[in-house]
């Protein structure tokens, strides 16, 4: 009996060890690709691989030249400006429309909620190539292909599901009696929104907006189909770089984007922490 328990415990410990090892391997698989890019972006040689000097930690094997190239390159600078302009404009549209819609969807009186929600979320699950091809046909007819406006509208509609989802999530469990109470105390709809609902949904609005911005900042297919030379964004430049001439400049930009991702993720997690401590929630 004693022997059986010991072997049971051994088996249990072995199982745990294997489980941890598997999880460790999967997490390395998830994260390692990001970590490899960072040291390679400081490669002094124009290669995509670790040189012997790099492995010896020879300081001559490392350099900032690719970062300098990127910063001095007018195409990359235009791409950065375009990415920011398009990203901000698309986020502004997506956030405004998305917040309004989420407020409507959260209202218990909303008719046809299921259908409307799945319609509003559909841009997120539709394959990007299909959306982009359709937009190319339709926006060409409207005469807004090859313009900033076309790309902004495309990115805005791709961003709206993120805003709708994250704002709706903060409204789950919201006590609509608060709105009625506010109204019965003489508050107009706008005042009630600003004083009662907005403080509650603010973290959701912020993270939805960050998601929308990140989605636009990383979007390349709509830019390929709808953008001309003047609408080149950072992902568009990277796309050409990866397909045509692979240069470590791309790794320098990639490192910048990893940092940006960490910053955005940190902000969203911080907002989430704040949202989970939200007041006025009906249990």
């Amino acid at each position, binding site marked *: 009996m004693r022997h059986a328990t010991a072997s049971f415990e051994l088996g249990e410990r072995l199982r745990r060890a294997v*489980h941890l090892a598997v*999880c460790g391997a*999967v*997490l390395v*698989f998830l*994260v*390692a*690709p*990001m970590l*490899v*890019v960072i040291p390679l972006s400081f490669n002094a040689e124009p290669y*995509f*691989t*670790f040189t012997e000097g790099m492995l010896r930690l020879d300081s001559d094997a490392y350099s900032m030249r690719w970062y300098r190239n990127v910063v001095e390159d007018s195409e990359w600078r235009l791409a950065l400006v375009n990415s920011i302009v398009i990203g901000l404009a698309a986020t502004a549209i997506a956030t405004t*429309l998305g917040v*309004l*819609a989420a407020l*409507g969807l959260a*209202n218990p009186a*909303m*008719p046809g909620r299921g259908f*409307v929600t799945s*319609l509003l*979320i*559909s841009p997120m*699950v*539709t*394959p*990007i*190539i*299909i959306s982009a*091809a*359709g*937009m190319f*046909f*339709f926006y060409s*007819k409207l005469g807004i292909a090859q313009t900033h406006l076309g790309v902004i*509208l*495309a990115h*805005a*509609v791709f961003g*709206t599901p993120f805003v709708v*989802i*994250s704002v709706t*999530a903060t409204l789950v469990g919201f006590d609509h009696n608060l709105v009625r109470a506010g109204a019965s105390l003489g508050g107009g709809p706008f005042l009630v929104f600003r004083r009662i609902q907005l403080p509650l949904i603010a973290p959701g609005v912020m*993270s939805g907006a960050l998601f929308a911005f*990140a989605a636009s900042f990383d979007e390349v297919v709509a830019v390929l189909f709808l953008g001309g030379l003047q609408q080149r964004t950072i*992902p568009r430049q*990277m*796309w050409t770089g*990866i*397909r045509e001439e692979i240069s470590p400049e*791309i*790794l320098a930009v*990639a490192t910048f984007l*990893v940092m940006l*991702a*960490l910053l955005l*993720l940190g902000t969203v*997690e911080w907002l989430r922490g704040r949202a989970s401590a939200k007041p006025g929630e009906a249990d």
Partner: protein
Amino acid sequence: MARTLSRARLRAAALTLPLLAFVGVTFIAPLGSMLVRSFHEPHVADALPQTLASLRAWDGASVPSEDTFRILATELRRLDQQRKLGGVATRINRLAGGMRSTIMDTARALRTAEPVSWRETLTATDPAWGDEAAWLAVRRAGERYTMRHYLNALDLDRDSSGNIVAQSPDRRIYLPLLLRTLGVSLAITFICLILGYPVAYLIANASPARANLLLLLVLVPFWTSLLVRTTSWIVLLQNQGVVNDLLVAAGIIGDDGRLALVYNMVGTLVAMTQVLLPFMILPLYAVMRSISPMYLRAASSLGATFWQGFVRVYWPQSLPGVAAGSLLVFILSIGYYITPALVGGRTGQLISNMIAYHMQESLNWGLAAALGVILLLAVMLLYLVYNRLVGIERMRLS
């Protein structure tokens, strides 16, 4: 009471209206425009109206009359002068190979010829005009509304008497590609489940502080640019890349036996699995978090081994997460474009890449649209299933 209720309904609906209108114009209308493209083909019909009118009366069994030859020659001349012939010739060529040069050569000959018999002049320029097949191709290319892009997309064709027949096996392109896309998506979904399940389980059963840290590790790649991750995989998997270097250094493979891990199906599978794995882990975790560890403990105290308890007690309870994650990963992978385009090489391409090819290179937009509509229908169907099974409202971002 009824009035206030309907006012509340109106107010709620009014709030969603601006976004509905926006999505309608910027997203749904483009999809509609793609749908129209897939069967509306006015180009040839507009370019050769009289030829087509004359061919409509033709029996299709013998060479058309002298009159039809004359009308075609006149219209070809006009198009040639207007420099509009190229597009027409390309479209007819898609139905019968060789027609592009036939038409272009004929138009060039017609610039100087002032013939007595149009039929003789045309067949002298290119004997193809003496064959009904050429005329049938012109007539079919002139159909304003056509199913041929769909037939084409499903590797079907019409024979000379108009019956729908399957393409010969060596000319089938799209069905095999469609099947490959489904196969690859299933494989990726399965791999993601195998890899994601233990991780989700670990996170769901860890202390809150540790769970948060692990979740961050899952979310970092989720937030990182897709292009960055794809670039990283090229860096890692290429011939002189990190993985091959490590394998050589470890003596597992020789320096001349480096593995082809990227620009092929392996690259597509590895990179897409990494990209889509968070979409599996997060829904799994959301469900597992709500499964109390008490159940497993109860099973074990009743004498079950871990695996018995897992199979009989835990796995059934985690099934909603398995369904949600698997459906999401499957939906995302069947329409995947960017990663296969960059790391798939020639053999790792999926149906989306074929749509892009017809959009950007062959410029056969009708076919691209038909393939797009077919893919869209598949995704919509899966989306409906997801909505039924999981509920779209339960979709979470973090």
